[in-house]
């Protein structure tokens, strides 16, 4: 049973075809990685799904709803959570308040004029922070957090409305190797517990191969390969256009310097 169905997605920018006829599905509880060279159309594809962009053709259905034409905020209300490549948190608020903000929105109380915002949905927020291991930093301001911790806060915010699917754009960009693995392991654990599906893009192949149930590969706007991590890794076409000789990830590098 698929949660997300992308079919016939196409988008061009001023004559450049960024996406052409992209089709894939995401099953319930599945972790799907989207990889491909820079400029292959990953971001475009992502933005068509999350409502930032409107594709020229095609359809994206999520749990029976057509997403094309909906603004991002409506897509969120349908149960899609997001994290960003470059962390986007509310810098003037504390960690807890960031999560509370998402909860305030979820409970449709953004127009409340009088109650103090810091007192709303606090327990719920702390529970979410607990899940990502950030409870002890709940009262710190987001602008002073370490990068890896910000990523965890983002995850907690993305989980606030109990989403059925998470879209994660390069979730581990800018992190140290061990942190990357840890963050993705944390994510994988949470989504498995809650039955959430995940679609993520990533350049770190160590992370991709360790966590993805399935991988799709984009190149020049087209889906050129799809399959299990092992199958994609051994696909000669994928090696040529994207993975390279393998010196830039995992086992090969370790071997080279052993």
């Amino acid at each position, binding site marked *: 049973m698929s949660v997300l169905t992308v079919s016939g997605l196409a988008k061009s920018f001023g004559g*450049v075809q960024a996406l052409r006829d992209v089709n894939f599905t995401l099953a319930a509880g599945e972790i799907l990685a989207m990889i*491909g*060279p*820079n*400029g292959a159309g990953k971001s475009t594809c992502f933005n068509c799904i999350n409502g930032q962009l409107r594709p020229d053709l095609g359809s994206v259905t999520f749990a029976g709803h057509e997403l094309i034409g909906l603004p991002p905020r409506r897509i969120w209300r349908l149960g899609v959570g997001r994290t960003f*490549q470059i962390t986007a948190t509310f810098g003037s608020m504390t960690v807890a308040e960031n999560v509370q903000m998402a909860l305030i929105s979820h409970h449709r109380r953004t127009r409340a004029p009088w109650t103090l915002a810091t007192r709303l949905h606090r327990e719920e927020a702390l529970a979410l922070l607990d899940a990502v291991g950030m409870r002890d930093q709940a009262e710190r301001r987001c602008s*002073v957090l*370490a*990068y*890896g911790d910000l990523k965890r806060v983002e995850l907690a915010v993305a989980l606030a409305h109990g989403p059925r699917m998470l879209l994660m754009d*390069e979730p581990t*960009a*800018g*992190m*140290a*190797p*061990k*942190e990357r693995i840890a963050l993705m392991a944390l994510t994988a654990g949470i989504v498995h517990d809650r039955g959430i599906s995940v679609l993520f893009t990533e*350049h770190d*192949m160590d992370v991709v191969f360790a966590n993805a149930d399935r991988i799709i590969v984009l190149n020049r706007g087209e889906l050129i390969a799809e399959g299990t991590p092992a199958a994609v890794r051994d696909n000669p076409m994928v090696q*040529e*256009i*994207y*993975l*390279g*000789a*393998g*010196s*830039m*990830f995992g086992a090969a*590098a370790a071997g*080279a*310097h052993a």
Partner: protein
Amino acid sequence: MLEVQGLHTHYGRAEILADVSFAVGAGEVVALLGRNGAGKSTTLKSIMRLVRPTKGEVTFLGERISRLDPYQICRRGLGYVPEDRRIFTDLTVVENLEVARQAPRAGAPLWTLERLFHLFPNLAERRHRSARAMSGGEQQMLTVARTLMGNPRAILLDEPSEGLAPVIVEQMARAVQELKAEGVTIVLSEQNLHFAAVVADRAIIIEKGRIRYTGTMRAALADETVRATYLMV
């Protein structure tokens, strides 16, 4: 060639660098390693005076540069390649390069457009196109090429492999090796250990704004404690 002594940098009240000191010899490739927020980029920016250190001295070719403006530092032959590319998207590829052109410099390789296009063939095909239309990998190459237009004797290279496809990272590594062969001194900050392992002679590991380890790249990779404690692989 480049000597950093007792560098302290603050953002507001937060201390980002504490007493960072190291020296880089001519022709060396040194990698600053450490996790995000450890202070790698800030170190490079502090050397370039794009952020103002609160304390510390930087000397380049025997001259104290820690009181100069960034443009003066650049004109002394120290180039800087930023982490987030920052190409001029309204300009064509050639214009991007021309903006950074400086007079030939004694003791440094002389770069012409043709030589740069030879180093980065992808750029040649797009020389009169707007830089906006380029992919992330091509933009990264353009940033490096742009800095080389100043004929630097040394360059500071901030996260050259970040956000690039493995196949592009391999090209980048080859370019860095060619620069080294030309005699350009390079200090790079890097998270991608695979990349650093391929290009760097020496490793400096920074954590929480302090230098924790200095040694050859080979030794750093071989040292189990270093790997486990700082490199986190």
